């Protein structure tokens, strides 16, 4: 019995789930990139000083640039319901309207609003009607979500604000080759991705989110949508169930292998023969040789904190690395199905063992495993990076993957730039006598 069981595990990906005692950013951090992406927005985080401290510290110097976000800081009077939520929020929103005049105000719910059961979804429509600015509510709290999932909660709320065509009927035979992509990326990257698809004759009719709230894409029943990032499962669900859109489940365009697979999958849906895609991928790989030489055969350990882990691990395995463990905060096996399949096939093509996927990891146990395995690189958060380096283990700060351009053919090199940086740095240091 035991023997057959172990063979089964080897054939398929092994999923584990630990205690969930791990470090990650609070999902309200999504405010920092979303306010920049949606240029006419204002984000109001309704929480305590703790939330404010986190945002101030995590955003570093950005907080000095007069960002379009603010804290509605809850005080003891709010908690004990001595103050009226409705009046307080209306007052704040009127002030925001007066000072900034945004096209939309996002309310970001936090742990505290959950615990005191503040009815943000109920209050928003009333205040929206009174101050005549749309108010979108997203519960990006630390009780339920991790880091990048914050964007997921915002986009899934935003998806419901997209307009649709008035036909009312689901147009399943519509063969217009257009698609809406969901996921927030810098404009340069969205241009690059849009151009890649246009070369295949597929037009991108819009992005969720768009640069402006006023230009949200039109999503009608039967329209095709595709995700650009692995952490957008709620948004995908909302688009399918509420907007009756058709979801293309594809690997994510991270790394040249992922990008090709992503485009291929979209082409397949539209029954288009991809043009020059293999050559395109090959050309990109050939520009990566110098970096790949550095990491080939080296081992990597993902502690897990931003949900990009599966895609990054799959790309690094293709680059010749050995992945010991993929920690991940949350694993949606349906939304990430194509990505998981690609991970499996990549492992068998590269002839390496399937990595263990650990959902809700326990950092303490992981540090134990890292001590035993001595990987060449640990991808981890800032709290463990310096202590691990002091113990002679190379680390790469995981948050940088979230804030760098890593999508599409054009940015594959940037991923390896990040991954190889500690290896390049430490090889230059090891020439010095003190180590």
């Amino acid at each position: 019995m035991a023997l057959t069981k172990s063979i089964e595990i080897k054939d398929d990906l092994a999923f584990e789930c630990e205690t969930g005692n791990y470090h990650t950013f609070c999902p309200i951090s999504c405010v920092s990139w979303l306010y920049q992406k949606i240029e006419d927005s204002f984000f109001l985080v309704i929480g305590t000083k703790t939330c404010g401290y986190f945002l101030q510290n995590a955003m570093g110097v950005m907080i000095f640039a007069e960002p379009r976000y603010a804290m509605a800081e809850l005080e003891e009077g709010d908690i004990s319901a001595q103050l009226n939520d409705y009046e307080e929020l209306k007052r704040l929103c009127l002030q925001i309207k007066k000072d900034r005049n945004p096209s939309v105000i996002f309310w970001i719910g936090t742990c505290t609003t959950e615990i005191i059961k503040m009815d943000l979804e109920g209050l928003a429509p009333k205040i929206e009607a009174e101050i005549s600015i749309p108010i979108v509510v997203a519960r990006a709290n630390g009780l339920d979500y991790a880091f990048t999932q914050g964007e997921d909660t915002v986009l899934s709320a935003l998806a419901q604000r997209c307009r649709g065509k008035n036909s009312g009927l689901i147009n399943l035979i519509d063969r217009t080759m257009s698609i809406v992509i969901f996921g927030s990326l810098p404009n340069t990257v969205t241009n690059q991705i849009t151009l890649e698809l246009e070369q295949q004759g597929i037009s991108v009719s819009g992005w969720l989110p768009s640069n402006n709230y006023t230009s949200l894409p039109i999503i009608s029943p039967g329209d095709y949508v595709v995700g650009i990032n692995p952490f957008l499962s709620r948004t995908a669900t909302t688009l399918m169930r509420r907007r009756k859109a058709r979801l293309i489940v594809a690997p994510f365009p991270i790394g040249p292998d992922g990008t090709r697979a992503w485009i291929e999958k979209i082409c397949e849906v539209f029954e288009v023969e991809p043009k020059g895609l293999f050559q395109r991928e090959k050309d990109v790989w050939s520009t990566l040789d110098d970096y790949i030489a550095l990491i080939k055969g080296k081992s990597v350990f993902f502690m897990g904190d931003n949900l990009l882990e599966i895609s990054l691990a799959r790309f690094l395995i293709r680059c010749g690395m050995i992945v010991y463990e993929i920690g991940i905060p949350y694993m949606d096996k349906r939304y990430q199905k194509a990505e998981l399949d690609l991970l499996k096939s990549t492992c068998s093509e590269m002839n390496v063992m399937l990595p263990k996927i650990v959902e809700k990891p326990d950092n303490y146990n992981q540090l134990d495993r890292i001590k035993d395995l001595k990987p060449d690189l640990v991808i981890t958060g800032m709290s463990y990076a310096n202590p691990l380096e002091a113990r002679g283990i190379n680390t790469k700060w995981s948050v940088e993957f979230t804030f760098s351009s890593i999508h599409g053919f054009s940015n594959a090199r940037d991923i390896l730039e990040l991954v190889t940086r500690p290896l390049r740095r430490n090889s230059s240091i090891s020439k010095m006598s003190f180590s």
Partner: protein
Amino acid sequence: MRSMLERERSFTPVTASVVDRHVLARGSQEKVINNITRKDREERPDLVVLTPTCTSSILQEDLKNFVHRASLNSKSDVLLADVNHYRVNELQAADKTLLQIVRFYLDKYKNTDKLSKLKTPKPSVNIIGSVGLGFHNHHDMVELKRLFLDLGIDVNLIIPEGITVEELCKITQAWFNFVPYKEIGLLTAQYLQSQYNLPFINIIPMGTIQISSCIKAIQNLLFSMGQKVDYSKYIDRQTRFISQSAWFSRSIDCQNLTGKKAVVFGDATHASAITRILSSEMSIRVIWSGTYCLNESDWFKNQVKNYCDQVVITDDHTLVADLIVKADPNAIFGTQMERHVGKRISVPCGVISSPVHIQNFPLSYRPFLGYEGTNQIADLVYNSFTLGMEDHLLEFFGGHDTKQVSEMNLSSENSFSWSREAKEELAKIPGFVRNRVKKNTERFACANSLDKITVQVMYKAKESQSL
């Protein structure tokens, strides 16, 4: 934050008992207790402090009971930090928690022979209030140790940074306590005075004048304990020869600063001390001085009342920014927030207090306290002002011309036509790399004999380059 700012080599000994949906539905039940006993097993600490957050404050669970039950199953002592998120700030919480821990161990040792009843043979001191993430704290402690060494006083304990709870039983051996900052440590010192008859001194030894009065206070204290010490020669020698700042005050450099306008903002300790230094040691006019330590407002007002035109007590940074703009000073001394205000309105700023950035955890020796501290502060002040002067002179005479020349040289033989979209794309690239991207793209276009540069060409150029 800790491993980043302090560049800590050890794992920060803090763990979370995670509150999630299940906890909301059913209470944290055994979770907190299991987490305490687990850490007890894994890390073998002497003390576990259960710390309430803003979330746990409103869950209103009986944390005291958890602590009691967990302590039954742990080798370590377990304490509940007696702080309320909605009533105290971080400095007050640190002050309270330090007292709580000290009191807990002294009560524990009280009726054993562990607690020292005898004083050390030589005069000795406990320095209370040295904490992680404190502003230039490590350097300050080194400087204070040196000061006490010079004065012939042994340092008995430095609390809390770097000691074990076991060592707290030695606390009463000291002749007196010294609290170098206003915000953290005073509660502990007051408790030790009332319960163990240990006197304390809380004069911040920042700036020449303050150091002198601090040392004189120590002298008087020791005198009352039967030690005939006379530090006046030491003060004189240090002031005239070791610290350069007294001489600096007389030099013509400092003369040029006379009547220059400054504003000061920070925690109560640093803002008050810097205000006094600027005003009484450098003849700089402090238009207003302020602190965000609202609970220290009376003390603060009293400290600076003769040294500035106006006192500001607020924790609203936009109000501070408005006041800075209104005052139009020659230099600002504040936190990182004020530094950025200064950047916006082109006024130089010296950072003198938390909240701070990683650059305020310098590798080199930079105390603010003691005689070496006076030198550091003089440099900080003087550099802020001269930089400002230099800037004005440059503006007056039309500025450096090097910038324009270097920009002109880039892509001078411009034979490429950039499409409108490509130009827009180029404009989006941050300024400091834009020219490099432009050059690389043109080089790529040249190599591939393309004369029209489109967005696609830009992306191709990026892909093709191996840096």
